[in-house]
């Protein structure tokens, strides 16, 4: 109930979703750079594969030469040749 109410208020006020909830925001600039805001943690990290945990699911990034540049408290920048992006939804969301 409470979550739905907050979501409604957000929609009325037109606030950006990533600011007031834990919904991640993924920005991809070109094919070599990706910024993910509101992430929870890193599940796996290899040179060719990054698995990033967020509050509503998991993001898998495939590529090669991946580097985690600039990791701060709530955003992460992935650099390297990105080839594909997969999203695993968490089942209890709906």
């Amino acid at each position: 109930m409470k979550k739905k109410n907050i979501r409604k208020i957000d929609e009325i006020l037109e606030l950006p979703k990533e600011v007031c909830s834990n919904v991640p925001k993924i920005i991809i600039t070109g094919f070599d750079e990706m910024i993910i805001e509101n992430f929870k943690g890193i599940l796996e990290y290899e040179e060719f594969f990054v698995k990033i945990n967020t509050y509503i699911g998991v993001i898998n990034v495939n590529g090669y030469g991946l580097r985690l540049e600039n990791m701060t408290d709530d955003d992460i920048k992935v650099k390297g040749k990105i080839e594909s992006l997969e999203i695993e939804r968490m089942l209890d969301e709906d």
Partner: protein
Amino acid sequence: MFIKIILSYLLGYLRLSIEGYYIERFINICKNNKIIIWNLKRDKDIHLYLNVRISEFKEICDIAKKTRCKIKIKNKKGIPFLLHKYKKRKIFAVFLILVVCSIGLSSNFVWNVDIREENNQKIENIIQDLESAGLKIGMLKSNINTKEIINKIRFQRNDIAWIGIELKGTNAIVKLVKSDKKPDIIDENEYCSIISDKAGVVTKINAQTGTANVKVGDTIKEGDVLINGWMEGKFTGIRYVHAKGEIEAKVWYTKHKKISYHTTQAKETGNKENKYGIKINNFEINFYKKLSKFKIYDTIETENKFKLFSDFYLPISFIKKMNKELEEVQEDYTLEEAKTIGIEELQEELEKEIENKNNIVNKNINTYEQEDGIDVYVTYEVLENIGTNEKIVF
């Protein structure tokens, strides 16, 4: 991003290599403890390279212990490490501080006084006056009270219409405007008569108030009274007035020059010689030892002041002396040539003096031959308004 790089360089950072099997856990713990790490790179399964600030290195060590990872420092970057490296070089540091201090200190002094006169009119002795008023080279800038100096100089001198002093860097710019000499203005109410300021022959006299003292055709000298500042009536007696009127007179301008038939003139041969030196305040150091190899020569001295940036003058100047070789050439004139040269030179000089060339009535040229030269006299007759007011003193 750029600011972040500079900041991290200022604070200093480490490039670490971490070896272990729980690298993801390590990263997550770092994130949860709010440790900023950047430029993570995975290499060959078990290696991870990352950058971290110096202040957070201890925490990282603790985390590594927890996750059973090995830590190796690969690189140290940043100013704290640089300073540490230079700690042993004490003399270097001392001199660096000395140089910075001396530059800072010397910027508090005036090292150059730049005098700029408007329209390039030369005002004599202004440098001495400025020095006595308190603007000297080598003075502390804070000791210079520009308002006081301006007041002093304006009080001392009458020929300055405006003066401004601007302290710019180590440069004091003095701007001057020369005032024209004004005749003493005599009040309308005061009694005065008109006297002549030039010698000549009166051609026209028109006294508006006052009585004329001279007639047309009279020759006058300098200082003669032209219009008297009183009026005489039959019944009123003598009444003093402020004399007014116009007097036109023929004035003669004469110039004389002797042109000799044989003259020696110095001519440049085109040979040049440069000599250099350095001047510190008033102490000169010359880089040359020999005297000039020329017999007769002209020296042109140019002085360049050293300056840092655009207006930070130092009390050191660079002197360049250029010696130009001269040659004495004897020139012979014939009688006619000497005459024309003399007349032309004199005419030029006279025409500079006379303001209104339309009023020239007559030109008179006389030449007298002599043994070794020729005397040339040129006289111009000019119609001019003459007369200045002079107060009547009882």
